[in-house]
């Protein structure tokens, strides 16, 4: 087992753009679930709409990349409206069912060969990200900070993606300390009480769905810029559940929760993988084939999620009092 490699991989993933993508999705989910109480199980779809919106905007509509990003966010708003207007009058658990179904519908629409010319079908889309690296203001070269070793492009991608994380966190902080955020928290506790105080609950829920969706859309954009392609199978329900784990690990109604949750989750994700693979390869785990390590990891993460919800529902950064009195 190569401990130095294990360490470098584990630490390296903390500042990986994919980690930032999940964090952005988790920030969006914290607006939905943590602050408004909306049970959104289709966060993958919001990210996918952002990702496909940018790729299609650039490749099919021939928009400049920055405009394509704006177009992607516009698509997210539309998607939130289409999803929200008929469903937000429903009770919370119905919303969960509808969102999970909608995200699967969207994924199948993207992978079907009927729209292959636009969506790329099951092959997805690529070759849309070059302009992004043309924007790179960081001079060429190799950048080494302790365990972090990046090329200029890798550095730029991290600056961009974690910059978005910072902006999103700041925005959520400003929103949630304002009277607007107070209405959302009231809705999380009891919709009817908030209605009786003269607030248009439906409008606030829709705003929350759109804003949380926009952060997820940014997450999707970061994800595909990092991968330099869009694949329909990325946006499976597993994606949504990983986002949920990140959020619950950090704390659903906290500012630093999604960030810390994302970093810790992916560090553990890589660490467990390396350890299990290493132990399997030197024969310490006779029942485990090295190829099975990937699946075992999912089992362990599922177990961790269950234990977390049972024993520490407020996550690492959540306020215990905000959850303790629920129910």
């Amino acid at each position, binding site marked *: 087992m190569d401990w130095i490699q294990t360490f470098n991989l584990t630490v390296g993933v903390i500042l990986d753009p994919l980690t930032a993508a999940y964090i952005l999705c988790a920030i969006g989910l914290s607006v939905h679930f943590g602050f408004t109480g909306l049970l959104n199980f289709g966060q993958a779809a919001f990210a996918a709409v952002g990702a496909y919106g940018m790729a299609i905007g650039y490749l099919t509509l021939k928009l400049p990349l920055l405009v394509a990003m704006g177009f992607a966010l516009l698509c997210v708003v539309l998607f939130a409206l289409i999803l929200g207007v008929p469903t937000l009058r429903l009770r919370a658990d119905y919303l969960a069912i509808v969102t999970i179904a909608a995200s699967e519908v969207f994924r199948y629409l993207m992978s079907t060969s009927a729209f292959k010319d636009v969506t790329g079908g099951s092959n997805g889309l690529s070759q849309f990200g070059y302009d992004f690296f043309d924007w790179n203001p960081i001079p060429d070269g190799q950048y080494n900070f302790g365990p972090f070793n990046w090329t200029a492009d890798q550095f730029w991608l991290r600056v961009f993606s974690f910059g978005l994380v910072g902006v999103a966190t700041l925005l959520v902080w400003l929103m949630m300390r304002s009277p*607007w955020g*107070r209405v959302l928290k009231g809705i999380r506790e009891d919709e009817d009480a*908030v209605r009786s*105080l*003269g607030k248009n609950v439906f409008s606030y829920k829709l705003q929350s769905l759109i804003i949380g969706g926009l952060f997820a859309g940014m997450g999707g954009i970061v994800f595909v810029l990092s991968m330099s392609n869009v694949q329909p199978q990325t946006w499976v329900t597993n994606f949504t559940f990983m986002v949920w784990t990140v959020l619950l690990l950090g704390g659903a109604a906290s500012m630093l929760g999604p960030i810390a949750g994302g970093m810790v989750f992916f560090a553990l994700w890589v660490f467990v993988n390396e350890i299990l693979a290493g132990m399997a390869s030197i024969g310490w785990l006779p029942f485990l084939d090295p190829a099975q390590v990937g699946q075992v990891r999912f089992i362990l993460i599922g177990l961790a999620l269950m234990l977390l919800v049972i024993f520490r529902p407020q996550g690492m950064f959540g306020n215990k009092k905000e*959850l303790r009195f629920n129910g």
Partner: protein
Amino acid sequence: MANDIVVGKIEPGCKKVDPILVADNVTRQFGGLTAVNVEHLEIPRGKITALIGPNGAGKTTLFNLLTGFDKPNTGSWQFEGKNLAGVPSYKVARRGMVRTFQLTKSLNAMTVIENMRLGAQKQSGENLFAGIAQMWRSQEARITEAADNLLARFKLDAKREDYAGSLSGGQRKLLEMARALMSEPKLIMLDEPMAGVNPALTQSLLEHIKGLKANGTTVLFVEHDMHMVRHISDWVIVMAEGKVVAEGEPSVVMKDQAVIDAYLGAHHDTDLGTMKKGK
């Protein structure tokens, strides 16, 4: 006395001198059951009106219908002369008709003061962009001051920073009422305000409700505590099986044989303790 409230004869559904709320032909059926069937009802402005009746009489359902929390099968009603039928509940509240709930709806994972601030109307920071742009600070200070005054009056000021979920049932009732008052309603509708509130607090709460009247607020409340009804209400409306069966001044209505039979029971006026002793 009666003629400063009523025009003409006192009977169920009688005309009022100055009604704030007028309902006509309001019905609500749940399957085959007619929960509410009110032909005509007027609530006098600036008075304290009690709505009483046995369990299942349709009092809470009527509250829900009038405030837009439930939709009637038929009916129309006007608040201050303006139609209110079909108006969503949040707009009803904005027009100045605010209600509380029988099962208290305090917002448990928010602090007491945040609960109170949420009750205020026209806080421009409740708009997303104004909220982000911090354009609500001075308004917030005014709202907080009003909230602190109300909390002091309801003896909840010591609990200001506590989570509402940590309050007792009675304190939550008080909080809900104080929160409703934050909007400075014209008509406040209280659904069993005294349920679960301890006797010492009941007294101050009664004074408080009287104080509301003095400030010009109209009060309509549902209550089973007859002593409270007699003590503070100017007018009593009795419902049974969805219909308004009697109306009148408290002293008169409570002597009405039909009301006593339907609701109060023969021994309504005697203390249970005395009854036992008398035997």
